[in-house]
């Protein structure tokens, strides 16, 4: 029979007692891939649409130089570095995810861990251990609250949960005593932002701060615990009572520490800078366009079928690029209007330009898009294993012809090896850092388990000539 503190106690014990030696080779390997992916996304975000606003914020709030803002020459306090790097990662919509758990663990965990590790001089093994623990915690908590947290309640799961992983991982990499680790997570539970998914529906650009805030508060929670502030011993129980309207903790502790969710194959990498739910739709469109040309003017109707999470993409006419990345009708319209640039750009680095926002043909096609839930797809993403992450797109032409494409994103993105993640890294950072330092970053992370500190990696992430953020885009910024 469990007591009212059992969940918190066991989760805290997992954080405190897990050592590098307890991680399997597979966990270590996967965490290296995750680190490389997240660092690449942070660099990409440093030149994104909202980066100028964050640069202004960082400049106005520059703290003691403790940790690096990736892609800039700037070092600031660990809290601010975690905030800016996390926001940059989130802004790309391209970082790895554990879709079933509605978690982007790396977005909050990795910026927090790297900031503290750089400040406190921790080793590569310390980093890998803390990252693995933070990921595992977040994935398990994401499964506890499930999609209802976002779909029914309107909270942004990764941002709302992110601080649990970030505070645990920041405390772990800070090598705090067991009691202090517990306090850090407890303080984190009290600081966890209740982030509204309406940010996305209402096209607010501050959505990009979500997981930066979780990362920063994670570092802050660990720092406050280190200063002597105490947190509640039972932290997850009152949080589950206060915030989510539904939860299922039956699997939360199952095989904790022995069967790692991070090794389950549930993590998958994103190859496109769009909301996760849009990826299979764009894959299906690629299939359709691969069969032969399709004239935009001939399109009479487009039906997009996917899981019930498709509702997250129900933004018809985005007015900025932050919202555009989450708008299925817009993305479908853009692809059908401009098929060749889309097909030629595998990571959509150039395709998603602000000019598309005012493109009349894109808007006209977006109006033709109907979105629908396929309940088999819904089962396959929420319940089945191996899971599928699917969409089917049916394009009906004015002459009655029907073209149909189907895509399951899962097989391609859930089992990428380090070389494949590195390929993505090189592609998305090519405009930001030169080839030689990019290769060194890839090598540095590959050998992280033998690094005595992360300073070498941090130095590579501070280019001597930072790339200027894209201020000319349509911007959310004044």
């Amino acid at each position, binding site marked *: 029979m469990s007591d009212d503190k059992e969940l918190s106690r066991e989760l805290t014990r997992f954080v405190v007692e897990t050592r590098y030696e307890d991680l399997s080779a597979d966990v270590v390997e996967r965490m290296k891939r995750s680190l490389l992916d997240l660092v690449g996304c942070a660099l990409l975000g440093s030149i994104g649409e909202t980066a100028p606003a964050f640069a202004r914020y960082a400049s106005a709030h520059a703290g003691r130089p403790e940790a690096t803002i990736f892609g800039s020459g700037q070092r600031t306090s660990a809290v601010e570095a975690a905030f800016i790097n996390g926001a940059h990662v989130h802004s790309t919509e391209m970082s790895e995810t554990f879709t079933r758990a509605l978690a982007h663990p790396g977005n909050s965990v990795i910026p927090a861990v790297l900031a503290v590790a750089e400040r406190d001089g921790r080793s590569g093994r310390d980093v890998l251990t803390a990252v693995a623990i933070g990921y595992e915690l977040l994935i398990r908590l994401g499964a506890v609250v499930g999609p209802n947290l976002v779909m029914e309640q309107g909270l942004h799961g990764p941002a709302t949960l992110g601080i649990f992983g970030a505070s645990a991982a920041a405390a772990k990499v800070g090598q705090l005593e067991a009691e202090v680790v517990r306090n850090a997570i407890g303080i984190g539970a*009290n600081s966890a932002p209740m*982030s509204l998914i309406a940010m996305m529906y209402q096209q607010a650009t501050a959505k990009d701060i979500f997981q930066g805030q979780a990362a920063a508060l994670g570092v802050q929670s660990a720092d406050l615990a280190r200063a002597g502030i105490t*947190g509640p011993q039972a932290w997850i129980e009152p949080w589950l009572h*206060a915030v989510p309207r539904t939860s299922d903790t039956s699997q939360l502790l199952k095989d904790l520490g022995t069967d790692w969710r991070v090794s389950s194959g549930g993590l998958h990498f994103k190859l496109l800078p769009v909301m996760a739910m849009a990826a299979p739709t764009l894959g299906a469109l690629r299939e359709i366009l691969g069969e032969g040309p399709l004239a935009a003017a001939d399109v009479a109707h487009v039906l997009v079928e996917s899981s019930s999470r498709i509702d997250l993409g129900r933004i018809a006419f985005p007015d900025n690029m932050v919202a555009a990345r989450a708008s299925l009708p817009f993305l479908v319209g853009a692809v059908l209007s401009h098929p060749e640039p889309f097909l030629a750009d595998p990571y959509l680095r150039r395709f998603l330009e602000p000019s598309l926002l005012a493109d009349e043909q894109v808007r006209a096609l977006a109006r033709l898009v109907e979105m629908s839930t396929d309940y088999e797809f819904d089962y396959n993403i929420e319940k089945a294993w191996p899971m599928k992450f699917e969409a089917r797109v049916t394009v009906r032409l004015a002459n009655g012809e029907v073209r149909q494409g189907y895509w399951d994103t899962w097989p391609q993105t859930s089992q990428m090896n380090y070389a494949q993640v590195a390929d993505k890294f090189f592609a998305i950072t090519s405009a930001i850092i030169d080839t030689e330092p990019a290769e060194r970053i890839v090598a540095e992370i590959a050998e992280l388990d033998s690094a005595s500190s992360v300073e070498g990696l941090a130095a590579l992430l501070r280019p001597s000539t930072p790339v200027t953020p894209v201020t000319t885009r349509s911007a959310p910024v*004044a």
Partner: protein
Amino acid sequence: LLPAIFATGEREGASGQAVLVAACVSYEVLIRMGLTVGARLVLDQGLHPPTVLGSIVASGASAKVREASADVVANAFGIGACMVPTALMASGYQHATVKDLFQGMAPATGVMAADLAATGLTGVRDWVTSWYAAVPRHYELDPLLDRLGSYWHVSSGGIRIKTRPVMAMAQPTMGALHGLLSEQALDWQRVKRIRVASSRRIELGRIYHPDTVVSARASIPFLVAAALVHPQEFVADAYLLHFLEDDHLTDPDIARLQDVVELEVDPEFDYNLERAEPSGDPAHYMKFEARVTIDLDDGEQVVAYKDMFAAGTGNMSRNDVERKFRAVVAGLIEPARADAIVSNVWRLDEADSVQPLVDSFTGALDGSA
């Protein structure tokens, strides 16, 4: 709200009037939001309303005091509504000192949200609908806009100034005991049973044997026992500035006596606190009450009652507030500095800048006050 307003006002060189306007407007919004969610946010859901609601409103307040455009103010609210910390009442029950950070989190969140809005980032436009749908499980939106701008809750008498450094719900209990122990001696060793009746919010004070002063301030059983075991110290210390010492946490007599303290809800008290209007029908005027019933070993029963509103904390004069201020800062700052602060606050509406007031907190005194 005020730490957010002062911090932003100092940085931005705001005038005294700008500070006062931001304070009045944000107080009004915060009070109205509090009325929309009521006590269930804390009692049923376990969230700390002053922090949860304060974070949102501090965002608007910080934007207001810098006299930002309407768009930026709206964006600050919309960003702040997405940054609200999950301040858990359980932290208080579990004696965690993080509780003291709660209302530091709120102004910090507010200033950050306003700063982010000032960089050009946009927030949720319809933050009211979205936030209420996602966070509180029970709410009634009518108080939010009811006579907004014509009827000011800040002038209703509903704001009450605390005179003791204990959780609000413990105030009427301590007031009742203060009245009782001021008038008669009572041997705590003869006490068999103590019943404390108040509104349903009394549950917030159901903490036995606190191990930190942070949780002691919220523990009604501890506070009652401490007052009865040390009545002279308690009565002599009007603002309880010296009474709540660490020693009391380990005092075996206080530990023993708090075990006989029972907390109960009086439905009439609950109605008077939650429903009666602060400035409405005098027959149903808002009350903030507690009744302490003490059973002694010879069968005698002693009863003490206090309504903190009737005691004047809802309508304290400048002199009353000034007296409290001077008492609580005595020994912390020199009298001249206290004089300067008081003077600068009373003349805030005439000040071109909030800086002289801020300087009177920490800087050199220029003798102008």
